[in-house]
Structures are given as C-alpha cells and as structure tokens.
C-alpha cells in the first residue's frame, strides 16, 4: 500500500516534469491558453454565482441568529460574515466545487483522449502530449480560479446584503459598516495564496489521473472518481497547512 502510494507520488512528479517543458510553439500554446481560460471561466461562472449567493445568505441568517444580543455591537454581523466568507468559505468551498466542475471535465477530456489513442497520435507526431494538453490547463486555472473566487466573494457578500434587506435582521448601514471594518490587505494575500495553490492541485491532479488511464470506459470513470477524491483531500489538507503557516 505504502509502496504503491510512493509510486503514484513519484509518477505524479515525473508527469509534472514532462508538463513543465517549453511549449513546442508559443503561438499554439497561447491560443490553447485563451481557449482553456474561456471554457473554464465562462463554464463555471453560473455554478459559482449560485453557490456563493446561497452560501452568503445562509451564513448571514445563521450568524444573525447566533449573535442576537444587545451586548454585541451592530457591525459584528457584517464583520463575521465577511471574515467567514472571504477567509474560509469562498476559497475552500468553491475550490471543492471546482474539483467537481473543472477537475472532472479535465480528467474526462484527457482520459478519453488517452482511451481513443489521440494522445498516442500526438506522441507519434513528435509532440510532448503532456505539455501540449496539460500546461495550458494548469496555467489557465492559475489565472481563472482566483478570478472565480473573487467573483464568488462578491456574490456571497451581495447575497448576505440582499438577505439583510429582505429579513431586516440588522440595518443595511450596520452590515456595510461591518463588512468594511478592520480590513487587512494581508487577508487578500492569504486568500489568493490559498486559491492559487488549490487551482494548481485541481488542474494538475485531475490531469494526472486522466493522463495515466490504461484501458477503457470503466477506467475513465475510476480515474474521475480518484482524481476527485485525491484533489479534494489535498485541498482540505493544504487548507489546514496554509492556514497554520500564514495566520
């Protein structure tokens, strides 16, 4: 079991070495990068917006219930919602969501190319298939995921604000006051660091599991599940490690 695990880790790093080589043609790489950014960003925007609005609304209601007291300052609700959403919920929950949305797409796409010998066709042409297929996906996710998370934060806080307007648990002025209180630039650095690390994990792990498929449709399904489980586990573990180091 441990030997198999070490073998997979070794295989993963060898795969990354193959991926991070100079692209064969810069122009082709750039075109593929734009295509990937387009499909990753536009394709995931709706689900990110829906989940973020829902998350922001629920957190606002739950927090309002917990801190309902005359002793607690009015701005506390906005401050707590902002801290929860910005520091933890959006980067981690949306990244876990993207493992399912983006990661599955990546591993299915690369896996089906492996099964139908399209990757072999690239290799026979003398093209480094790992670099050609995977490098644009990794770079695109490093650019797109932080943008998606920032959009997610915006939607979550908007969802919270709209909930305040509808339910009237606190005044909009106090909520906005809370959202803007005690803001630290370092929090943005922390969030973006987490997001970029998670984006790398999602794209590289999913690509790895898709790329190493041997067999047919059954293995494709297994690769999707394995990629999802491993990427989710790594995101949650790295979340803990990064939080411990940076805060």
């Amino acid at each position, binding site marked *: 079991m441990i030997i198999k695990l070490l073998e997979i880790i070794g295989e993963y790093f060898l795969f990354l070495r193959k991926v991070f080589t100079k692209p*064969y*043609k810069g122009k*082709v790489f750039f075109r593929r990068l734009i295509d990937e950014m387009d499909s990753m960003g536009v394709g995931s925007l709706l689900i990110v917006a829906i989940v973020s609005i829902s998350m922001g609304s629920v957190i606002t209601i739950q927090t309002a219930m917990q801190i309902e007291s005359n002793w607690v300052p009015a701005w506390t609700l906005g401050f707590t919602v902002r801290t929860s959403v910005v520091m933890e919920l959006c980067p981690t929950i949306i990244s876990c969501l993207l493992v399912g949305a983006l990661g599955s797409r990546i591993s299915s796409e690369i896996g*089906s*190319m492996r099964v*139908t*010998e*399209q990757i*072999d*066709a690239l*290799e*026979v*042409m*003398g*093209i480094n298939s790992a670099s050609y297929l995977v490098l644009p996906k990794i770079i695109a996710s490093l650019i797109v995921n932080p943008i998606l998370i920032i959009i997610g934060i915006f939607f979550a806080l908007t969802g919270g604000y709209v909930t305040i307007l509808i339910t009237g648990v606190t005044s909009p002025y106090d909520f906005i006051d809370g959202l803007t209180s005690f803001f630290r630039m370092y929090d943005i650095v922390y969030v973006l660091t987490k997001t970029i690390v998670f984006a790398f994990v999602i794209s590289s792990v999913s690509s790895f599991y898709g790329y190493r498929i041997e067999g047919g449709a059954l293995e494709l399904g297994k690769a999707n599940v394995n990629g999802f489980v491993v990427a989710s586990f790594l995101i949650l573990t790295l979340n803990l490690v990064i939080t411990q180091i940076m805060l």
Partner: protein
Amino acid sequence: MITINNVCKYFGDRKVLNDINTSFEQGKVNLVIGRSGSGKTVLMKCLVGLLTPDEGEILYDGRNFNLFSNKERQNIRTEMGMVFQGAALFDSMTVQDNVMFPLNMLTSQSWEEKLERVNVCLKRVDLVNSNNFFPAELSGGMKKRAAIARAIACNPQYLFCDEPNSGLDPKTALLIDELIIEITHEFDMTTVVNTHDINSFITIGETISYIHKGTLEWRGNMDNVMSSDNEKLNDFIFAQPLTQRIRNLM
C-alpha cells in the same frame, strides 16, 4: 528501410514479442499479419516509440531508434505518419484542423501554404469539401481517410497503419487498401500495415510478415502467401469457409 533485429517485449512475466527479426522495405507496403493478440500492435508501438523493446534493436535506415536521445527521437517522429485503428482524430477539431495540426506544430509555413497542403491531402484521399466536418459527423471510412490525410500532411518517410480497414465494409476496405498502396508508391514511403484482412494480403502485401503468439513464423509476399506450406500460416489464412473453398479449387 526499417530493420528489426532480435526484438523482444515483455509485459510483466509475459513475453509478447519473441525474438522478432524482419525488415520493411522503402517504396513498398509491408504487411504484418496475425491473429488478434498475436503482438502486431505491440510491434508497431515499438516501431514508433510508444513502447520500448526490452531486447533487440530497431534501425531506421541504419540509425538505431533505441539509442536516440529525446531530441533525436522527436526529430525522427516528424518523419513518421501513423493511422490508428480508431483513426484517433482530434474530436474537438474539424477535418481541416486535424490535417493542418501537424503542419501547425512541425512547420513554419504560412496559413495559406498550410491550407493549400491540407486541400491537396484531402483531395488525395477523396475528401474534398469535407474541411468543416467534425470527426463525429464522418462515417468510419471517411474517418480513416481523414486520418490518412493527416498522416501524410508532412510528407512522412515512414507510414504506419494499424488495422486500417477494421470495421469497414469490403468495398470501403478495398478503397483504403488501394489508397495506401498508391500513396506509398507516389511518395516512395516505407509503409507498415497491421492487418488480419485476407483481401489486404492479396491486394497490397508487397512483403508480408506473419506473427503467431509473438513469434515471426513466416515472411514472404502476396504471390506466395496462399501457397505456403507453413502450417500455422495456413491455419490462419484458411480459417474461413470462403478461403477453404478457394484452397480446394487451387
């Protein structure tokens, strides 16, 4: 010319290629025949470098493929074209983009030059006006022809075809066979074709290597494949009732 000397390949303890010695001549269609699971595809994958032989050597015009550096290997692969069993066209690209792909990656031609070359290749395989179709919109025979067009786009010296007429009706299979032999002679390529289609042996088999359970059992050409006294070859060729009847008439 491709020469194979003492090539062996193992998968775990299982020996799938056993001391193969043969050669594939330039300007000819060289068939590798054998039953399913005999090792034909493994041999072809060793030839193009998708698998590495455990023993023996593969010489491309005297150059040992196994001793090449990664760079040299990439360079010689630009001289190869391969038609896969399932065509292996890129799903997300049109026929035109598929055929243009090796030109985009391996040449520095202008777009107009590349388009002209694509149209020449598509005309050669009788796929004129199919530029904007996606692979999913093509029939099996059209996919194979598009794959051949992609394989010859960069004027390769070596053409490899793995079961090019599997899954095709006899008429379309014959068209593919004729196309392969025509382009081989036209461009003076070294063509290697894996097949177990009897019609192919007698139409395009300028040299034939018969592999049985990973071992090269017989080598000859289309003139003597039907009259060989090799028992294993005869068991393979005359397995069908139709060929048995032909044998009785001979």
